[in-house]
């Protein structure tokens, strides 16, 4: 059986010459989907590095927000990479995108962590309340996963459309302010804004 080389392993991250602990092979990159699918199917040990390179920041961001604990998020991310490698051969791209599949794994593992944080109840009434809470946690985890997927999909938009959405939703600028600041005619801003939202909606629907 082959072994998995996670980014921290000696093969994937040779020691940096100087002390300081800043080695790495991680970087955000456009996923090479065919290569990734091939690696998953073949259980290639390098698949972890490929996933981390393409989706690591989104997965980690999601896990950090959900778990509110950077260390736990890093641990869960490693579990996700391991599980993706272990289960990769059974991944069916016709059923879900790689991102959706990875987010589903991340969500499940994170919920496991959240469950372990809650002590076992002895009071039946408390047990019922905790079950309700568990449902709420799962809903919350699912909603957050959708948001982080959306953040990833923003990077798929043409840059002028993504920029408009960032100005409107990240920087809270009105369309008039965007037009003034960019010099783009207001009507064009409005038209592009709708197109950008519709493109993003289309991408989200493809993910589902």
């Amino acid at each position, binding site marked *: 059986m082959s072994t998995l080389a996670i980014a921290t392993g000696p093969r994937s991250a040779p020691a940096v010459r100087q002390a300081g602990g800043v080695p790495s092979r991680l970087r955000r990159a456009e996923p090479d989907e065919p290569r990734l699918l091939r690696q998953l199917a073949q259980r290639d040990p390098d698949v972890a590095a490929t996933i981390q390179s393409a989706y690591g920041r989104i997965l980690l961001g999601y896990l950090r927000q959900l778990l509110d604990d950077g260390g736990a998020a890093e641990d869960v991310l490693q579990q996700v990479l391991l599980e993706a490698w272990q289960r990769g051969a059974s991944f069916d791209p016709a059923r879900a995108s790689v991102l959706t599949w990875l987010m589903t794994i991340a969500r499940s593992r994170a919920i496991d962590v959240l469950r372990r944080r809650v002590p076992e109840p002895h009071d039946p009434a408390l047990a019922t309340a905790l079950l309700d809470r568990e449902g709420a946690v799962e809903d919350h985890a699912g909603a957050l996963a959708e948001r982080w997927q*959306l953040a990833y999909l923003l990077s798929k938009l043409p840059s002028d459309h993504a920029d408009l959405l960032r100005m409107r939703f990240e920087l809270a600028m009105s369309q008039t302010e965007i037009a003034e600041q960019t010099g783009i005619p207001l009507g064009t801003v409005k038209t592009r804004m709708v197109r950008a939202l519709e493109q993003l909606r289309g991408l989200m629907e493809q993910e589902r």
Partner: protein
Amino acid sequence: MSREPQEPIGDYVLGELSEEERRRVQQRLREDPLLRDRVEGLEAIAGMLESLPPEAWETLGPRPGPVTVRDRAPWRSSLRQWLRPRPALVAGACALLLGAGIGIGVLIERPASPSGPTVVLHALAGAAPSERALARMTPGGRMVLSVERLPPTGPGSFYELWLMTNLHDLVAVASFRVGADGRAELDVPLPVSPARYRYLDISLQRSSAGPGHSGDSVLRAPIPT
């Protein structure tokens, strides 16, 4: 129906209509189920965008400014896209483009007078102490990097500039080669705010290896807070 003028729909979704205009759109939505579906879809996306945490936006790189939309020429936009998400291509292409000792930054227009904080990158253990680089952050989210006395890159190797904090947090900024004079000068856009990272790092990379950090760092400096 759905191909009615888009502006009121966008304005409606974004909450930028007067009360009267809003009522008018709502009336249209009641009469047109297809338009209603379309608007509801846009509202759902807009709602999700409204609730994105700052960290999620940061994964997209530097915030857009007026220049990024108004002044960015198509070729520059394409170049930037090409530079960022496809590191292997960058490395390979840089090896070709920079073979004559021209930094990739030369392809991008340079500011008249760099200003902003300057960082001195010093040689790490294993490298000659005289090797060094100066990096200046310039307005508009760019960096001017000057390297001196670095060993020339041979065939199949190049240097890469990184913003990095730790194993899980780094981003490649630019690839470059160094000729016999040991010098190179780059003027590159920063993909993210350097304030988010602890170090500026220059590594020696092999073209035949993967796009990640080689682990062979030659120069490094803490990024001032």
